[in-house]
């Protein structure tokens, strides 16, 4: 069987599946059970500075988007960092790490944006045996209003400054956790790198309002008639997170910066996709909160099976495998021509492909008298919309035209690779 053991910025763990800093990692009791269930590591729920701990709301802190059968697709929360005293957390971290030396225990931190508090909390951690620290520059609600979390993560200069303090005052491997609530992920990633971060982790949650109660006209979750935006996570955010991971991994300046991938990881496949896009490991929050710690067993068996089938013996061999294929639009081959093909044996004649193509400007699917559906190659632009809306799996597929074959829509022969940068219509294209 494949070897799932993982090493991320020098931190070893039995597998690349870590629990993200969040309620599942807020207690010794949880973390011990998580390790017993099979998780490779945890990032402890974010610690704040010594003194009276933060206070959470005492009404609903979560809101959710469900599928029709109540499958949880997206989760929103207005929870703050740990609301337990610093000393208690530190004692627990020390005990857990002592009993689980082979598992990764990283501690997430968030203190005010001044050097003193950062130095102090790092000192408090020195004897815990923790494997590293993660700087929470991502939490988008509550703490951000107090100048922490995403309020830091949205200002690259602050990220760099705090990261420098952390590297100056400790030897811990340092992961900077990024907020997705920014315009371009490369700026904060680069700032972290310039500050000396060993890695970045992303994403933290996305600003969101899950729903509005149309009787009380209050955003949900509602606390005594009012609601505040929260942070969105779970399966729904995975595409957003994966793009941000890929952006960092394929950008030459940040390409060497290790990444811990977070956002909607629920199955082995999600994890493998993040890793293929450059994540050295993954962190999981919502899936564990939705199904319990046991889901890691599926991640372990699934990733092992995948690796065995592919002949991949080490998880690090997956990391970054898709990065060379993640490109800019302008790099894509404009001479790659495909046409939709309907498998008449599979078609159930619902007509959806026809109407979406009809109403989406291409009019490339005929509906014949006998209610059969056929693609008109002379109009099909190969957009893939019919494939996406067809209720029958593999009923509509895309056929790749061979080199030299005539594209009936343009009347031109399919030629070799050429992209927009050299296209005659591109007036900016340099000729020759």
């Amino acid at each position: 069987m494949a070897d799932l053991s993982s090493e991320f910025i020098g931190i070893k763990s039995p597998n690349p599946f870590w629990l993200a800093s969040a309620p599942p990692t807020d207690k010794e009791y949880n973390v011990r059970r998580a390790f017993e269930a099979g998780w490779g590591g945890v990032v402890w729920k974010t610690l704040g500075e010594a003194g009276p701990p933060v206070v959470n709301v005492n009404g609903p802190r979560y809101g959710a988007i469900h599928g029709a059968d109540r499958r949880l697709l997206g989760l929103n929360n207005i929870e703050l960092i740990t609301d337990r005293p610093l000393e208690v957390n530190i004692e627990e971290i020390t005990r857990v790490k002592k009993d689980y030396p082979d598992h990764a225990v990283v501690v997430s931190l968030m203190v005010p944006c001044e050097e003193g508090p950062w130095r102090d909390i790092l000192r408090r951690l020195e004897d815990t045996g923790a494997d590293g620290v993660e700087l929470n520059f991502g939490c988008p609600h509550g703490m951000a209003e107090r100048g922490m979390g995403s309020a830091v993560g949205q200002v690259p200069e602050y990220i760099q400054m705090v990261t420098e303090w952390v590297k100056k005052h400790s030897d811990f491997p340092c992961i900077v956790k990024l907020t997705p609530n920014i315009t371009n992920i490369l700026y904060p990633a680069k700032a972290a790198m310039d500050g000396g971060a060993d890695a970045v982790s992303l994403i933290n949650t996305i600003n969101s309002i899950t729903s509005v109660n149309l009787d009380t006209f209050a955003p949900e979750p509602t606390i005594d008639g009012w609601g505040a935006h929260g942070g969105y996570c779970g399966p729904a955010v995975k595409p957003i997170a994966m793009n941000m991971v890929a952006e960092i991994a394929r950008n030459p300046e940040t390409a060497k910066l290790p990444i811990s991938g977070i956002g909607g990881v629920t199955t082995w496949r999600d994890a493998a996709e993040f890793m293929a896009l450059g994540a050295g490991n993954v962190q999981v929050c919502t899936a564990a909160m939705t199904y319990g710690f046991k889901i890691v067993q599926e991640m372990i068996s699934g990733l092992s099976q995948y690796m065995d089938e592919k002949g991949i013996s080490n998880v690090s061999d997956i990391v970054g495998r898709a990065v060379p294929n993640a490109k800019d639009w302008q790099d894509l081959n404009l001479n790659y021509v495909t046409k939709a093909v309907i498998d008449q044996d599979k078609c159930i004649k619902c007509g959806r492909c026809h109407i979406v193509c009809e109403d989406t400007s291409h009019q490339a699917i005929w509906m014949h008298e006998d209610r059969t559906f056929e693609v008109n190659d002379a109009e099909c632009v190969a957009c893939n919309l019919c494939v996406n809306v067809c209720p029958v799996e593999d009923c509509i597929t895309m056929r790749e035209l061979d080199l030299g074959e005539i594209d009936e829509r343009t009347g031109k022969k399919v030629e070799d690779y050429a992209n927009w940068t050299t296209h005659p219509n591109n007036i900016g294209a340099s000729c020759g």
Partner: protein
Amino acid sequence: MSTNPSTPGIAAGRLSAAQVASNFSDLHPPLTDHEARVAADRCYFCHDAPCMEACPTSIDIPLFIRQISTGTPEAAAHTIFSQNILGGMCARVCPTETLCEEVCVREEAEGKPVIIGQLQRYATDRLMARGGHPYARAASTGKSVAVVGAGPAGLACAHRLAMHGHDVTLFDARPKGGGLNEYGIAAYKAAGDFAQQELDWLMGVGGITCAYDQRLGDNLALDALQAEHDAVFLAIGLAGVNAMTVSGAHDADISAVDWISDMRQSPNKTDIPVGRNVVVIGGGMTAVDAAVQAKLLGAETVTIAYRRDKAAMAASVFEQDLASSKGVRILYNAAPKSLTADSITLARTETRDGKLVETGEEMTLPADQVMRAIGQTLEGAPDILALENGKIYVNETGQTSVDGIWAGGDCATGGEDLTVTAVAEGRDAAEDIHNRLMGKG
């Protein structure tokens, strides 16, 4: 006119070979990938899942269904086989409506359980289709164990012992292994030659030597087995049938189990004689299986006569409905009273003060064939073993009253007489034997 359902008396070939083949195809056709994913999506991944609790082999059902939903049915099959090496057969024959699916929270909530059995088949079929065997044996222990009876209990025990590195000799009185998987289970539940395919696949673990045509108490002696092996496991099932005491004699008064056994061994089944009017006596799974298969072979009328009421019937409501849907008539409260050469007279009964009594009313049915399905009994158990309620006494780990001899499955006390229970008992006895042989027990 050629032979047909109305041909009087008993005849083979009442239906065409094509019709019979179609009648005996899979009761539940295998799920397609898409169907499996949709079915798997309904599972809630319950904590401490009731379905898992209800499975006699404690398969981790939520985990294997999740593995199906994430596109790794092979991993799902590993989850299944690690608890139940005959997970393929159990997926086909378990009365899920009274086991895992009965307690599925979606059955509770909506009356529509997750179709656990069919998903289990989907996963196990996928892994078995890959060929090879999923388990490697541990290093040889040099110990040897005799397993008598190659039905589900014996197979599960032999496999687990072989995995632990012991050498196993598997004896059976019949010329083929599989036990009732091969000779008893309804043909439409284990369509194709699944019982033998599964047996061959299971043997792939290595370390198991089969010795067929060896009957304990006949050409196989217990003391010799004890002398030659470090442990003995008995899984001889229930080889005898209960006798029915009614007055008169019928020309074709046969045992349902024997008739099914002959039918299971016939490749296309058109050579199996079946009556125009068939009456099956009994109320269990065997009665239903015999009746349904008689109907599928072209009997014109098939009646199950059961002496108690519907609620008391051992066959589940699902089985009863299956019989009705195939055109079998079930007469409740009808006890056999007397036979003539070609008819049976039944006494109507009722329950008074908790006792079954005849009402005095009688009915006589034409019967070209009378099939008895009134229960099997232990036969051929060695005298030195203590019995309890007509079965070999075993404790919770499968040990009999004689040191060094274990027993499980239908022949032993404990559990229901089901394939899956036999598997659980065989597996658990193997673990106990292993612990004992390795000095751990």
